[in-house]
């Protein structure tokens, strides 16, 4: 609590006042950033959603036309479908894979740090480089994936041309970035006191029982956190789809953010794109609430 002295005889600010101002200066960049790059654009988007604007002529007020269009847009349905399918598959697969890797990487052997680095590196490869790399891996004739599939006796799959397989390709691609989640899980796993495992050993618990009754409950806050982040991130997938297939083939990978981008900057319907952005926001809020309500109760907090 600041005590402001009004009967001060010395000139200038009090120590507390100075400290407070310095405090505000330090958080100013962040607050300014939130206002300039989140609050203001969100407010402008809300305002734009009631207008028609193609960037060339000034915005024209059209009331709720853009909202009506939401219900009559078949491509929006396709886009939501693609985004949800991607999220439903890639998030659990990604989290499970990250958890599996993290458990492996807690093994105490020499040089484990090297392996941790190796598994973490892919997640910091720049998006464009990753996209080019994966486009080659999914290459129908000579791509690495098809070579393996053909060795196992499978057909030549046109990963990026066949609409039935492109979604699978992107789900496989999403496992490329589990490094970050893996590191978080690693930290969490190492934070579990070994005495619990020792006690479980004494009680005669097998490996799977230990995971079920010790590891998972104690990791559940972290898993919950990565689940929320993973859902929000997956619903907003853009870069890989934009770079590799640009929404194709036949709009099979027209994820929602890519659709918004296309609607705004290629089709020049800024008002409708603003509505879609707010729609995405509400979908994410509802999704988060569902996850909080359903999974939040099962999270075990030690205190």
């Amino acid at each position, binding site marked *: 609590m600041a005590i402001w002295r009004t009967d001060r005889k010395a000139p200038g600010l009090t120590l507390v006042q100075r400290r407070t101002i310095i405090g505000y200066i330090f958080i100013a960049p962040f607050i300014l950033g939130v206002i300039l790059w989140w609050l203001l654009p969100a407010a402008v988007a809300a305002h734009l959603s009631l207008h028609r604007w193609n*960037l*060339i002529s000034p915005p024209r007020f059209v009331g709720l036309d853009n909202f009506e269009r939401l219900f009559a847009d078949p491509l929006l349905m396709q886009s939501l479908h693609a985004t949800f399918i991607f999220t439903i598959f890639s998030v659990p697969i990604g989290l499970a894979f990250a958890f599996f890797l993290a458990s492996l990487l807690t093994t105490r052997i020499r040089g484990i740090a090297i392996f941790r680095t190796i598994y973490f590196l892919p997640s910091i490869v720049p998006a464009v480089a990753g996209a080019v790399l994966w486009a080659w891996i999914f290459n*129908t004739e000579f791509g690495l994936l098809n070579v393996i599939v053909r060795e196992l006796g499978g057909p030549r799959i046109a990963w*990026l*041309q066949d609409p039935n397989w492109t979604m699978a390709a992107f789900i496989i691609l999403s496992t490329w970035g589990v490094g970050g989640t893996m590191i978080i899980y690693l930290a969490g796993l190492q934070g579990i006191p070994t005495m619990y495992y020792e006690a479980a050993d004494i009680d005669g618990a097998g490996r799977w029982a230990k995971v079920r009754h010790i590891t998972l409950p104690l990791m559940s806050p972290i898993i919950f956190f990565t689940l929320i982040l993973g859902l929000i991130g997956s619903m907003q997938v853009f870069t890989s789809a934009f770079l590799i297939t640009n929404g194709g083939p036949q709009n099979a990978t027209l994820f929602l953010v890519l659709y918004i981008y296309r609607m705004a*900057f290629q089709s*020049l319907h800024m008002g409708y794109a603003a509505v879609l952005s707010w729609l995405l926001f509400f979908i994410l809020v509802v999704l988060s609430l569902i996850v909080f309500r359903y999974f939040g109760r099962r999270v075990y907090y030690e205190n």
Partner: protein
Amino acid sequence: MSIMSMNNRISRRKFIKLLGTSAAAGAFLSTSDLMKAYAQNVTTISFRGWGGVEEDAGVRAAIEVFQEENPHIRVEWQHIVADYAMVLLADIAAGTAPDTAFVGSEQYETLRQGGMLLDITDRIRNDPLLGQPGYFFEPQEAARSADADGRWHGIGSCWVAPHIFYNAALFDEAGITPPGFRDDQIWDWDTFVEIAKQLTVDHHGRHPGDAGFDRENIQCWGVNWPLWWIPIAAAVVANGGKFFTEDGLSGLDSPEALEALQRLSDLIYVHHVAPRGAALEGLGMPIAAMLDTNRLAMAVDGSWALAWINPTALTVPMGTGALPKMAQTATYMQAHFHSALAPTRHPEEAWQWVRFLATPFYQTQFLKIGLWLPSQTALLTEEGMAGWLTEGIHPDSHAYFVANYLPKYGVTGRIPPGWPEAATDHIAPAFEALGLGTPAEEVFPDAVRRANEVLRAAQM
């Protein structure tokens, strides 16, 4: 000691403050100094465009010549490497539009409709050089530049149109006469398919139609006809159809268009003379390399590809020829425009620059490297062509192509507003479905109906 350090601390703070304010003042003063200097006797206009290294060099050379001839005008070149359309729109929306710019053929109508392009009709008509009838070859130039009222809002940079690039050595080996541009050298569709079959061989040397022909292991394809909009438009007009109708809608659901589209798909799936898009991408080789390594006999590609598919670049002998005719001989031509933007504060100087770009110097640079085809008749005469035809770039057939074939058989038109949206959302997916083997009449009527809804909405 403490007094000394106290003095130092205060004076250091003051010193830094002083430094900061003087630096800011200096920066402000220096920019205003620059502005004052320019305002006095030189007008600066901005010119924005896209392109690679050659375009960049070409524009800079043109700017030098122009600035020599017009010492009171300075042109600032803004080279945009990626996302050109979007960057231009963002600047227009922000009020910082350039004075002059490249305008893509698919953006031209949208910008014109929004009142963003300067009307230069009267300036062109009154110009002693550009106003002469027959300065550009017609009727194509007016067909693409003029709106329904005959007003011009930009001048076409050049022409480009698809045609056949072929590997002459493969034709020699098979004993077949390659195509050309003269009327007697242009094949009809069935002849074209037959010849493509003779040039397609699998790994055992068999042709399509032979017993035991292995369509999964083809060593050399007869032809590659890409399934994106320009090569498709060329096929559609060659069958007498229209890619865009007069009322600015898509014409791809007409019987002629559907027949042309199906014929392109049949090249891949019925006659097995063309690779599937997947296989082509799968080989990871650019077209030039495929021609060069005898994996492809004929490639249908835009005339711009001559810049890298030419006698100097390839190790095999090559040539160019006209697309086969279906109902008529035709190819589809278009190109980007040079326009002055309406918000410019220097319309006269902007016009002078746009005008300069429509005179021979600028166009010649890109004609020489094979990237462009001439739109100015002065460059189509014997002496005119001698000024840009380059040994090693332009095959022997090129002179006849630009001076006779293109003006006679090139078809063009205005690309309607709303086309980028209609194309991305509905037409391009239909092309993709066609490329996967779906029959044209299953895909296109529906896609065209949806695309036309978008195009109609954009016209309002």
